[in-house]
């Protein structure tokens, strides 16, 4: 299939349709409203379901209803809207309900602004919902990757019976670039062993998130965490760019991962050995791979459009193997290749100073 020029938000919507998304439930919010508009224009004429829900509380709970029947469903929102969904995302993890949530981050906290930002890493990866649970989080850095990861999100949501969040930002959502819509590449597992469709000649089933008997909730959580370990083994994904001989490794996710590459290329042109490590799955976080990278590097510079959120996972993965520096701007402050390059020059001097002093 030929490449087409497509906007990030619309690419995600079309990819969801290609992935077999039968229902979209959403509530408008900038900078992701094109997803709902695209779905509203296409799903009904395909005989699929589109509802503008009364709130994000409603839309995510409609996704739960669809998910309990084993049907592929999606919602999308941004920052404050995603905040309203947290109770339901926790419930989905507990009751093992599949569903896809697209989060196109804007500036915060509060209503913040509508500028691109990455300040909802914690919200997505650590979760604002209650209890011990994990949402699978996929982080695209290009429109092409947004398409591919949307496909993957639908597949692994059903495969693991867990919510999957596609964590994009306003840059990616609003940006147009050439991309290719390949065919949906996955064979999805059969859902008939657990989906609700009426107790017809079989015992009744329930999909609920309340487990009151003594010990039941701990037992369930232990099983869920075994599942999360399985997910970590099978799904952890990262991209390494010019990393083999890198003294300074930039860590960044999403759009910043892409911008960091441009800065690394410029640094290489100027004689600095710089590479980029970009987590593609934020949960599961590629901590083992990053630790190996850190062992070979002299320093890590973590770059984010927030005040240092993934930074905690980076430090945890590095675990003292090398120093970790941070550079970030937030709430609409963009990290340009030039800004990143200036920071690279600054921290690279520290590496060289230490090398001369025989510290490293």
């Amino acid at each position, binding site marked *: 299939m030929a490449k087409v020029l497509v906007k990030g938000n619309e690419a995600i919507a079309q990819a969801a349709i290609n992935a077999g998304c039968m229902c979209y439930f959403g509530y408008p919010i900038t900078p992701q409203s094109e997803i709902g508009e695209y779905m509203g224009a296409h799903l009904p004429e395909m005989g699929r379901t589109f509802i503008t829900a009364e709130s994000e509380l409603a839309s995510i*709970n409609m996704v739960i209803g*669809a998910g309990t*029947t084993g049907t592929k469903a999606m919602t999308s929102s941004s920052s404050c809207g995603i905040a309203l969904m947290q109770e*339901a995302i926790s419930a989905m993890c507990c009751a093992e309900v599949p569903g896809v949530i697209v989060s196109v981050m804007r500036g915060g906290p509060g209503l913040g602004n509508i500028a691109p930002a990455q300040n909802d890493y914690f919200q997505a990866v650590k979760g604002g919902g209650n209890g011990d649970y994990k949402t699978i989080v996929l982080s695209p850095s290009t429109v092409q990757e947004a398409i591919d990861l949307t496909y993957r999100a639908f597949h692994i949501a059903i495969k693991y019976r867990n919510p999957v969040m596609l964590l994009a930002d306003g840059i990616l959502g609003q940006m147009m670039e050439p991309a290719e819509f390949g065919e949906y590449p996955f064979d999805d597992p059969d859902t008939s062993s657990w989906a*609700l469709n009426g*107790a017809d000649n079989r015992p009744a089933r329930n999909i609920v998130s*309340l487990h009151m008997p003594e010990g039941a909730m701990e037992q369930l959580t232990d099983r869920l965490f075994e599942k999360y370990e399985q997910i970590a083994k099978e799904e952890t994904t990262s991209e390494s760019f010019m990393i083999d001989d890198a003294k300074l490794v930039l860590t960044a996710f999403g759009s910043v991962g892409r911008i960091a590459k441009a800065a690394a290329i410029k640094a290489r042109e100027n004689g600095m050995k710089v590479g980029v490590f970009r987590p593609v799955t934020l949960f599961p976080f590629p901590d083992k791979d990053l630790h190996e990278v850190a062992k070979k590097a002299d320093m890590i510079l973590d770059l984010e459009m927030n005040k240092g959120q993934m930074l905690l996972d980076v430090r945890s993965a590095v675990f003292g193997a090398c120093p970790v520096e941070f550079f970030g701007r937030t709430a609409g402050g963009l990290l340009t290749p030039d800004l990143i390059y200036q920071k690279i020059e600054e921290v690279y001097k520290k590496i060289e100073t230490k090398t001369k002093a025989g510290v490293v």
Partner: protein
Amino acid sequence: METLVYKRPESLLKDGQFTFCPGCGHGVVLRIIAELIDEYNLKKDTIAISSVGCSIFLEKFFDLDVAGASHGRSPCVATGVKRCKPDKFVFTYQGDGDAATIGFNETIHTACRGEHITTIMINNTNFGMTGGQASATTLVGQVTTTTPKGRKPELTGYPLHAAEIIAGCEGTAYAARVAITTSKNIRQAKEAIRKAFEAQIKGLGYGFVEVLAACPTNWHMKPIEAVKHIDNIIEQVHPLGVFKDVSAQETK
């Protein structure tokens, strides 16, 4: 020849035991629902949506598929199920705290969309499971744990009349308020729930039945006093009646 006149509905679990307080109305309504699901042979096609409150443990009583919902969101879960499985029978079972307080926005919008689902809302004018706090439907003057001197309108406003408001939504096919205080009105309650179920089965729209039910524990009354309290006091504020019936309008 012996004639069997009373048996346990097939849609109730054979070993399921109601765990409600003495004199509570939930058991009566759950049995009515089970009888109707049997009568319409819907067991194999039903997905029940539970809610939060004393209405939560549907899977412990019904031999039916059950999806759980967060507090106030069962109409949304029901919407998701029904849109995916339009040939299935989907109902929500909620209390006044769930459907009329935290989730009234969802209830109204489900009605306005005319979703082909049915809601049974037990109204006992308080949050029963958490120990009897005031809800949206609490009567003026009613003593609860959060209104120890009685609900005062100047502080907490007036009771919400759910069935009447839902009847005002265009997508509603049937809306009624019933009681289960006498044999007669238990039969009438069953007929109302039947009508609300039929509204879904016939594809007419949203069905909503509000059932006034006793909560003797939190009202601090004996069961018999609680029943009289509904007939004598609560029905003055939340009157019984059919507020909308699209099928009746069609036959006129």
